């Protein structure tokens, strides 16, 4: 269903009605807590205008709207028409417009350094594809019975990300080239000193690393233990027990040796017996060492993909891992 959105001046009789409708929209249907204005700008006006466009052709409702009488029916109509589930069901294109700002921010997230014109171009392309096709698929597949409203945002953004990747692949470009972007240094002047900004940036990066490590699920403990060996970060009994719950005292002794000055090859030779024993394998030390190296490359790749240019390499990743484990590796702004 096509929905034309345009601003409609309420009649003088409808001024109070407008206020009532806006109140339902802002406090009941789309409260600031769930739909903050910075991410959903003008959402209330947008929805109000949509509602007007919907009731205009309906004589009875339109008359009620323009009358001075208190009308429960109008309120019910607002609730019925504009609740998110029905909005998606009957006016999916409006949902796309509601999420405009999110899409813009996502594009900045993915290509902060891209030429703004190029970014705007991609933004328009994403909007077009959503409105033409994708939002109907979302409507078809999204199941409100299982998801909270915040999950719709996730679901929607997964689709947006898919479209973005499609566009990039089709154009065969990396929209990460030159372009005007406000450097964080400028922002820093407004909000604080370099140290504070550094801390914020690093915290964000550490949270990313934590997120990535969580995705390794069952091998996370093994991976973290090996990362510590690779980067000579002191290993604790807790680390070992997390990886090998049935570890023996001799294992703890072997794995907590001081490997500070040892070469990688030597380190993995020494720890291999414990890994082989608990994993019932007969790997060579090189296998374990190479496995860690592959995982390190993977993590670096994932981290770099969250930036518009390559930030991490093998050298500064070592520094970054040291930072990560500096405070015990607990960077849980959330429940990670």
């Amino acid at each position, binding site marked *: 269903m096509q929905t034309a959105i345009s601003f409609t001046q309420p009649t003088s009789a409808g001024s109070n009605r407008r206020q009532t409708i806006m109140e339902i929209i802002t406090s009941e249907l789309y409260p600031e807590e769930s739909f903050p204005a910075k991410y959903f700008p003008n959402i209330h006006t947008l929805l109000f205008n949509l509602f007007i466009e919907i009731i205009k052709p309906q004589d009875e409702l339109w008359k009620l709207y323009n009358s001075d009488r208190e009308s429960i029916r109008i309120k019910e109509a607002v609730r019925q028409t504009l609740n998110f589930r029905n909005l998606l069901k009957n006016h999916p294109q409006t949902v796309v417009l509601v999420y405009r700002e999110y899409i813009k921010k996502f594009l900045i997230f993915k290509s902060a350094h891209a030429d703004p014109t190029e970014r705007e171009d991609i933004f328009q392309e994403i909007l077009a594809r959503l409105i033409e096709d994708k939002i109907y698929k979302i409507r078809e597949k999204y199941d409100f019975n299982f998801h909270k409203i915040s999950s719709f945002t*996730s679901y929607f953004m997964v689709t947006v990300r898919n479209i973005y990747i499609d566009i990039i692949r089709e154009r065969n470009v990396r929209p990460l080239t030159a372009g005007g972007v406000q450097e964080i240094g400028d*922002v820093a002047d407004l909000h604080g000193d370099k140290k504070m900004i550094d801390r914020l940036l690093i915290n964000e990066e550490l949270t990313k690393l934590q997120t990535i490590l969580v*995705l390794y699920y069952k091998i996370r403990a093994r991976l973290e233990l090996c990362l510590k060996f690779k980067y*000579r970060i002191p290993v604790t009994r807790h680390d070992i027990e997390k990886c090998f719950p049935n570890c023996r005292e001799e294992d703890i002794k072997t794995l907590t040796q001081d490997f500070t000055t040892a070469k990688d090859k030597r380190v993995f030779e020494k720890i291999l017996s414990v890994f082989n024993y608990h994993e019932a394998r007969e790997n060579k030390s090189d296998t374990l060492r190479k496995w860690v190296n592959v995982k390190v490359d993977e993590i670096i790749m994932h981290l770099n993909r969250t930036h518009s240019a390559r930030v991490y390499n093998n050298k500064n990743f070592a520094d970054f891992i040291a*930072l990560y484990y500096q405070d015990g590796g607990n960077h849980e702004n959330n429940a990670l």
Partner: protein
Amino acid sequence: MKTTHYEIENGHLSDALTARYADALIEEGIPNLPEEALLHVQDCTECKDKIIDVSIFLRNPDSSIAKSADRVKSAITDNTDNIVVMPGRKWDLYPLRIAAIFFVTAILLGTYFFVFRDGASFKEMFSNTGDTGQIKQAEEKPAVPGQKTSSPGETPANGAEKNGQQTTTGNGVNIVNPNLESMIDTRYRSSGIQIISPLNNTGYTAGSDIVFAWTPPVQGPLTLKIINNKNAVVYEYPLGVNGCEFVLKQNLPPGLYYWKLENQDDLLHIGKFFVKK
């Protein structure tokens, strides 16, 4: 048709499941998702990327604004300075790698210029000249300022005085002449004569006699030319007919010299010797 939560499509997590995973990372910590999905993501970089993108973005949609990669890089570098770093980990290999690359490149270039291009090896140059000094770059200029040598367009004979007179002085350096070097063995093989003396790279003391001898005797008239390493003829001797030996009472300055044996039509041989102090 509604999807179930935990559907895997085309070998990857469905969008619904990806969104659920992203939500779980933000809100619940360890995702309460089916084992199958968790194991798939564990090994699938594509799904990981998708989840990372969405979860990191949704955690703070504003965080990426105005963030430059260089700024993040320097933030990490600056802030690791205060960490107690394990020896070895912080060891910076990059300068060493670059130095190693330069070193290897220099060796290869040196090998190319001194061995392959000029046709002489280091061993030859040092073992025969007694010159332990550094190898110098060949220069087409007089050893003594103002002294005449053959100009590039001048043929060796033009600069030479006939009948045993020295035309130019030796330059005293032991740098090989690429053009003459490349001719040495070629001419020897094609002429059919065997050189008895001087063998290539033989060193002679300044002022000592040099015996030029070959076999079998060659039909003349023959000419023996002594050439310095700048391709200038230093001595030129007519040898008459059927010559097979010639003794040169030389007073050549130390350096590398080439000698040519020619008949009227052909160059029969090119060899080289050194004169030492």
